[in-house]
């Protein structure tokens, strides 16, 4: 069990793990946008859209701003 937890922890610390989280966040944002479009509520659409853009920018921000190469 401890090994599994350690594996999970190390995976989510990797780039692939971070992108996996970003992917899940985008899916959540997708559901929020669809709910906003369905109910005709632009504020809900905006919240979902901002979450989605934030998750999309995870990779360029971590690669070039937080941990820039050399």
């Amino acid at each position, binding site marked *: 069990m401890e090994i599994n937890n350690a594996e999970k922890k190390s*995976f989510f610390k990797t*780039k*692939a793990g971070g*992108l*996996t989280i*970003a*992917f899940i966040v*985008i*899916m959540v944002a*997708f559901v929020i*946008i*669809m709910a*906003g*479009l369905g109910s*005709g509520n*632009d504020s809900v*659409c*905006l919240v*979902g*859209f901002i979450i*989605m*853009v934030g998750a*999309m*920018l*995870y*990779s*360029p921000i971590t*690669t*070039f701003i937080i941990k820039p190469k050399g």
Partner: protein
Amino acid sequence: MNIPINLFTWIMAFLPIIVLLILMIKFNWGATEAAPVGLLITIVTGLFFFKANIRLIAAESAKGVWNALVILIIVWTAILMYQVGDEAKAFLVIRNGMRKLLPNELLLVLAMGWIFESFLQGITGFGVPVAVGAPLLIGIGVKPLWAVIIPLLGQAWGNTFGTLGAAWDSLAMSAGFAAGTKEYLVTALWTSAFIWFWVAIGGFATCWFYGKGKALKKGFPAVALMAVIQGGGELLLSQVNTTICCFVPACVSLIVILLLGRTKLYNQEWSIADSPIMNREFEEQADGGERLPDMSLVQAFVPYFLLSALTLIVLLVKPINALLGQVSFGLSFPETSTGYGYVNAAVERFSPFTPFTHASMFLFVSAIVGLIYYKSHGWIGEGGVKRIFVKSVSMTMPSGIAVIGLVIMSKIMDGTGQTVVLANGIASVMGKVYVILAPFVGLLGTFMTGSNMSSNILFGGFQMTTANLLKVNASAILGAQSAGGAIGSAVSPSKIILGTTTAGILGKEGEVLKKIIALTVPATIVIGVILYALVAL
């Protein structure tokens, strides 16, 4: 639509694409990093210069996520199929078996990187040939970068009439041609003639990459024969049945290349020791390192045979297709419009997903049956099943962000009218000289959307209108559009990323793009110049 088409709006519409290209080609950014930046620029230009509102941008983003999810299911199932073969060491068996059948290394590379991809493109498409082909080439000792480039070039010709003619049908639909009419057949003839040109380029380029002039000389008879079978066969069959006019020549060429390996010209061991695309150290390691399972070549190919059979049965046997096609679901979207009056009509079921006739289902079933088959023979050991699934998910996720970013970008560009401005601007400024750029517009469409079919939907109507405005042969222009779109599939970032993912070189998309763009853009310009000489002079 009242969008002003001037230099400023044209530059604004082109900005996201040019930034994407610069980041990937000049700065070697991976698609995972470049796509979100391109997307951000598209959002800004859409909101501020094309007068979109947040509802439109959010709706187009959601459409993009939905389309990207459908693509990602294919990516995951293609990677799953690869992982099944990898875990069972089937690729080592395929590599050694194909080496025995094709002792000439150049012919082996052509068979595994060009002909097999053509066959896969004929039935599946959606980037599957690239995702599956890259690891197969690595298995025969090709360097990972080239293992992505060669299948990208090899599969491109099949993008219009491959996947059982899906992209062609969308072109005919956009132009309003009914199947079998004179315009339909003439356009099919022009399209297949231009594609034939690219078929030959794909083969000769692979020879050149393998060993420059020496390899070109050695490979010339094989490539010329394959080009006649694939390109010429497609041209002839396009006048009979456009659904199978790519698949049938692709199958014939697969058989013929194996027979070529038995001819005097190619039945001896032949290779170029210092070939820049081959990893000789890898081959030595692979030869001495891993123990081969007791598996025949036919057994190693079981999942691929199943994939071919399944795809053909489901797509060609109409009662089965109709029955399985009944299960379908899509999302509904409200009407949206920009401040310029560019309207995106409401849709009840946007891009309906038909799971049981979708390429991902064929891949998934083939992968699972392959897994059971390999496991029943003891070729997949303890913990192997878990490893296969974990690795397939881990490999899919990173490419997911790039695919989602690129598809949303194209959706927002389309939904805010940026794509129309881009195309109209080119046509109105250039006049008849536009004809030269007609195939390039097709390429651009596929680059942006990741699919020849989407490029044809996006630009088919525009190309036809432009041809009529300029009073040039519309069938020829449409043929150039689709041929350019097919060639564009080699530079489509969402396809490139499939290859870099399965080849294990994620982040090297810029390097791949840089090498392929040097071949694809001149090829579309040459087609454009030929077209200009034939219809506009």
